[in-house]
């Protein structure tokens, strides 16, 4: 193990469980990626990896009222599941908190993850308990299940793990909110694994609202069976370094896959979204739409990889990444990566980067709207397309409130 990595995890203990021991062993042969690494070209980990971090099970009661947007919610503080702060019925979702021994019995657990990836391996070695959510076959859940991940305190590391299996012909929504309470210089390393069964519909709405000194890396490994619809919306409004790795294996025919992102920054944030859709079979559609609004000295990275395998015919894959730079010092690196090995395929991708339309700002001003507010209206309109795709009024309202709190936007 490199000194850097060794130092990074030195305050963490591995449990006796075989699964975690093996992951720790694997970690011993890995190192942090550098900008020489193709998928980390634009994102430097130096600041994060130099942090001296430790675990901390915080026992405090927390007032999370303004973050709760669902009747059923689970609270995780610094990587520890807090049943005392959670509230849920087991009628809609089968919810369990399981150790790695028990999870290893699950057919799909840990299967899709890249064993050479340092962050998901670290997660496997050090997570406390897995939140396992199963949605029964044909179960139609009206209300979503929300998971609130809280960072609390300074120099804390949290390894959080979520496992979702949506049963045949089920329909559900999961909300994930990543927030902080008096937290600085902390790091959350999150892994979500999702198995979407035949004919199931699953939507994940994610809000990432970390402190601007905190970092968050998520790895999302999704497997779709035939006739399923999977949608994941990611909203990032703050954080020192936020990196989302979404990997979707579309393994059954007639699937729909949607990925949307709205990123709004104003300081020094680095927000990096790497998505990967692997079309392994025919007759599927994937849609991707990411919008960045970058202010201050922030950096955005978008890498959208789409692979259409050799015999995967009649695939429609659309990808769009539009960006607005609000300052001369903000920058965006946007890269589509299409690898098409089949011939009956419709793929399109487009990326635009620009400033706000000066004529539109002036027009709004002549109606009595101050320049700042005019800009906010335009930016709000720009990300509106993504906000509409949440399909959840409460989540939308929550995001609007956070936009006002964090970025001073009015609605």
């Amino acid at each position, binding site marked *: 193990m490199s000194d850097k990595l060794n130092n990074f995890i030195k305050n963490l203990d591995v449990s006796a469980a075989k699964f975690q021991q093996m992951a720790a062993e694997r970690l011993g042969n890995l190192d942090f990626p550098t900008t020489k690494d193709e998928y980390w070209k634009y994102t430097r980990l130096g600041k994060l990896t130099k942090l001296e971090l430790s675990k901390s099970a915080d026992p405090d009661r927390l007032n999370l009222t303004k973050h709760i947007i669902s009747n059923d919610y689970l609270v995780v503080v610094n990587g520890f599941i807090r049943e005392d702060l959670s509230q849920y019925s087991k009628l809609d979702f089968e919810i369990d908190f399981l150790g790695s021994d028990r999870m290893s019995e699950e057919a799909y657990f840990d299967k899709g993850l890249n064993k050479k990836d340092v962050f998901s391996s670290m997660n496997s070695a050090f997570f406390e308990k897995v939140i396992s959510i199963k949605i029964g076959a044909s179960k139609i859940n009206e209300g979503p299940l929300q998971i609130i991940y809280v960072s609390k305190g300074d120099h804390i590391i949290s390894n959080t793990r979520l496992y979702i299996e949506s049963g045949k012909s089920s329909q559900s929504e999961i909300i994930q909110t990543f927030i902080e309470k008096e937290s600085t210089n902390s790091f959350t390393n999150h892994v979500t694994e999702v198995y979407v069964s035949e004919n199931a519909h699953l939507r994940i709405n994610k809000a990432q609202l970390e402190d601007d000194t905190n970092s968050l890396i998520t790895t999302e490994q999704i497997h779709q069976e035939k006739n399923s619809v999977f949608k994941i919306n990611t909203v990032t409004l703050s954080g020192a370094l936020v990196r989302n790795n979404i990997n979707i294996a579309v393994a059954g025919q007639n699937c729909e896959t949607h990925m949307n992102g709205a990123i709004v920054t104003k300081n020094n944030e680095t927000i990096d979204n790497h998505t990967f859709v692997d079309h392994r079979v025919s007759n599927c559609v994937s849609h991707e739409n990411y919008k960045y609004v970058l202010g201050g000295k922030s950096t955005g990275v978008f890498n959208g990889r789409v692979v259409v395998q050799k015999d995967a015919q009649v695939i429609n894959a659309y990808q769009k990444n539009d960006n607005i730079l609000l300052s001369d010092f903000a920058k965006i690196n946007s890269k589509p990566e299409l690898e098409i090995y089949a011939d009956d395929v419709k793929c399109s991708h487009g990326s635009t980067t620009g400033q706000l339309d000066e004529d*539109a700002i*002036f*027009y709004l001003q*002549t*109606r*009595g*709207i101050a320049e700042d507010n005019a800009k906010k*209206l335009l930016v*709000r309109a720009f990300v509106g397309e993504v906000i509409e795709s949440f399909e959840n009024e409460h989540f939308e309202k929550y995001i609007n409130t956070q936009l006002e709190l964090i970025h001073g936007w009015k609605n």
Partner: protein
Amino acid sequence: MSKTLLDIKNLHAEIEEEGKAILKGLNLTVKAGEVHAIMGPNGAGKSTLASVVSGKDGYEVTDGTVEMDGADILELDPDERAKEGLFLAFQYPVEIPGVSNINFLRTALNEIKEYRQEEPISAKDFMAMVREKSALVDLDAKLASRSVNEGFSGGEKKRNEIFQMAMLEPKVAILDETDSGLDIDALRIVAAGVNKLKNENNAVILITHYQRLLDYIVPDFVHVLADGQIVKTGDKSLALELEEKGYDWLN
């Protein structure tokens, strides 16, 4: 005597980037209750005048003054000028995808009210106002709630401008070629709308190329703007004369 709402004295303005002078000593005094028409050849500086008065970036005022209601407005931002009661109906209204017409108007109206230290308008009163004012210019209620000007026909855009004017009730409205692009019926409707909004406390400046508009909105004064100056001022008969003879005879 009625009070002066807009007073432009010896206005010189140039394009910032090129240093090209467009307005070259323009004078115009508009009093409450008056309608002024400004005519003049293409490229004379009519739209530039509207832009400079409403505070658009990219123009530098090198000399002269512009006062509204007795106060200098040249240092104010465009939105502050609007809050003081200025309105500009654009020759080319801007399309703003994703921003709903009525949402932004409500934001505007409430921002103006806050500036004037008035209570914000309730959702109910606002909707009633939208209904009343869109009827005034026969603007389809559906258009009122769509994105600002997006996909509107040329004529619909112009009607939307007057609808916004009706919602904001300005003291001084500059209508830049609101008549161009309107069919004959629409012209009549829009003109009737403007006439209804007109009263002894406000004023309207019509920039137009066509005498026809002035049959419907009768001006108290007709000015000819040529090469950055008002070169001639008359009553409505001047418009007829211009229609007949063009602009050449003025030189």
